[in-house]
């Protein structure tokens, strides 16, 4: 196939998915919207929007409480989503699926409920230079509370982890490893399975921050072997305010509750309270019912599409985007790891990323600009921030071509 034919065949394959996303059918400043910010938050398919609306319209009520029909329906849909997610990531039990408000809460939960009681001065937690702030700050907090120390695996100038240094840092003093599956700022895919194996050789549990992993690849937590896997709904075409903590049942059972309140108890009296069993022990208060139902619909959507075909498409489109951006004089690509998901960070001439973002927005192109909540990565590259284009299953080459046109216009404006 010629390149043009390849391009056409890729466009045809994903055009059907594009139609599922109403937000993509709009114009911004008289230009068709080109949405290249899915790593921040992905657009939602109509099936997710409708699932949420259907609950709001007909089934709105509280879960796990009422004997009436609406509460039954709400509970069924809410708990049904848990089953869907269990299947989606191949967890061994539904008790291992905890609904949270997002990756951030999932990680904080593990830091406070799993790590904090086990840590004391001199213990070490191992994380990496590549992480999002949500996989750094919770560990800094728990270190401050316990006197433990946070060790950081460095990266190289392509944005890849220094695995030799990981081996050096992995000692008997390390109590926990927290690592991102895919870097949100650079797109680097970390060898998490290998890292889990190495940590387990020392009996050290591993949390994987999967916020950027779940949207781009089929996740099998049992195959990865990790002890905790955290992710967010809104990066996988679901609603904001939803997230999952997967945890091994044995570890979750041993952990004290993270928050206290309704729904996480069996019996409350002032003589003592009996906590509920898993997974409810970690779900205090009325949950984000509509959001979780939407998340369930997002899982249905992802299971209805050909994930392997999408992965191939995203990988092809990433190559196309990187190649086309790279052709522009004055471009500096940030993050050139060998193994990457659909994210490319870059700088253009000496135009500040923030200016670039505004000018691109004016051409209908939505990208993320700034430090991407990964200030240590920016410090490593000695830059205040980057422009970042990120891909989802609905992006096509026309999107990339419009990005290139907009970048060239920005260059002209600042020339």
């Amino acid at each position, binding site marked *: 196939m010629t390149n043009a034919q390849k391009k056409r065949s890729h466009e045809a394959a994903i055009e059907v998915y594009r139609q599922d996303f109403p937000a993509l059918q709009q114009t911004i*400043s008289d230009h068709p919207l080109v949405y290249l910010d899915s790593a921040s938050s992905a657009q939602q398919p109509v099936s997710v929007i409708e699932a949420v609306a259907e609950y709001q319209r007909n089934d709105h009520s509280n879960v796990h409480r009422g004997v009436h029909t609406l509460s039954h329906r709400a509970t069924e849909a809410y708990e049904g989503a848990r089953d869907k997610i269990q299947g989606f990531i191949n967890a061994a039990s539904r008790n291992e699926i905890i609904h949270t408000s997002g990756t951030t809460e999932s990680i904080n939960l593990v830091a406070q409920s799993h790590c904090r009681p086990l840590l004391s001065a001199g213990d070490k937690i191992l994380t990496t230079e590549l992480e999002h702030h949500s996989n750094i700050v919770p560990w800094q907090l728990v270190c401050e509370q316990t006197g433990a120390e946070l060790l950081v695996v460095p990266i190289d100038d392509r944005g890849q982890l220094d695995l030799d240094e990981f081996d050096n840092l992995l000692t008997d003093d390390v109590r926990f490893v927290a690592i991102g599956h895919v870097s949100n700022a650079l797109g680097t895919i970390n060898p998490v399975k290998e890292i889990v194996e190495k940590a387990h050789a020392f009996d050290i549990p591993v949390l994987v921050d999967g916020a950027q992993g779940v949207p781009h690849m089929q996740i099998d937590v049992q195959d990865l072997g990790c002890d905790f896997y955290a992710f967010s709904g809104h990066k996988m075409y679901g609603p904001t305010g939803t997230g999952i903590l997967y945890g091994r049942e044995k570890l979750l059972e041993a952990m004290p509750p993270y928050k206290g309140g309704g729904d996480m108890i069996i019996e409350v009296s002032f003589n003592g309270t009996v906590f509920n069993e898993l997974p409810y022990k970690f779900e205090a208060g009325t949950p984000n019912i509509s959001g979780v139902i939407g998340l369930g619909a997002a899982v249905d959507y992802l299971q209805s599409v050909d994930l392997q075909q999408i992965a191939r498409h995203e990988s092809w489109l990433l190559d196309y985007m990187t190649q086309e951006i790279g052709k522009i004089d004055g471009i500096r690509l940030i993050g050139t790891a060998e193994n990457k998901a659909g994210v490319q960070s870059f700088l253009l001439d000496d*135009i*500040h*990323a*923030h*200016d670039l973002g*505004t*000018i691109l927005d*004016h051409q209908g192109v939505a990208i993320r*600009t*700034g*430090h991407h909540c990964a*200030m240590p990565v*920016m410090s490593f590259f000695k830059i*205040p*921030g980057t422009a970042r284009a990120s891909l989802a299953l609905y992006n096509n080459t026309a999107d990339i071509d419009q990005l290139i046109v907009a970048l*060239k*216009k920005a260059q*002209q*404006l*600042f*020339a």
Partner: protein
Amino acid sequence: MNTAFDTDDNMRDLYRELILDHARNPRHFGKMDDATHCADGINPLCGDKLRVYLRVNEDQLIAAAGFEGSGCAISVASASLLTDLIIGLPSSQARNYYSAVTQRLSNPDTIVAEPDSIDLGKLKALDGVREYPSRVKCATLAWHAMNSALNNQSTPVSTE
């Protein structure tokens, strides 16, 4: 030049030649060793950080002003225009400018009239940001830092 944006008034309104000129060649840029006042301004949205230096003499006149740091075209140009303007002014008048500029840029629906004794002059080139709420913070960053420096606040000010 810039033919691509000839019909694109909004972008030209935001990135006027004066702004681009000050962004490319910021005036009074660099560390000042004999400053009497100094404060940082941080925009957490993008991580930009500017440090504004002032040398205020015994008559409360701003004898010298400067800044350093990194920022977008809007924040650097605004800092550059600020330093150009306030050198030689009484510190009280610099504060008046601070109020006038921050109010004018933060109220997209109404142009706040220039108070008596204030001539915004070139600073009106920043008016374009009024259409871009997320960029108002860029334009006011140096101004908040200057105000904080005059108030002798030691903690960095944030535009969030």
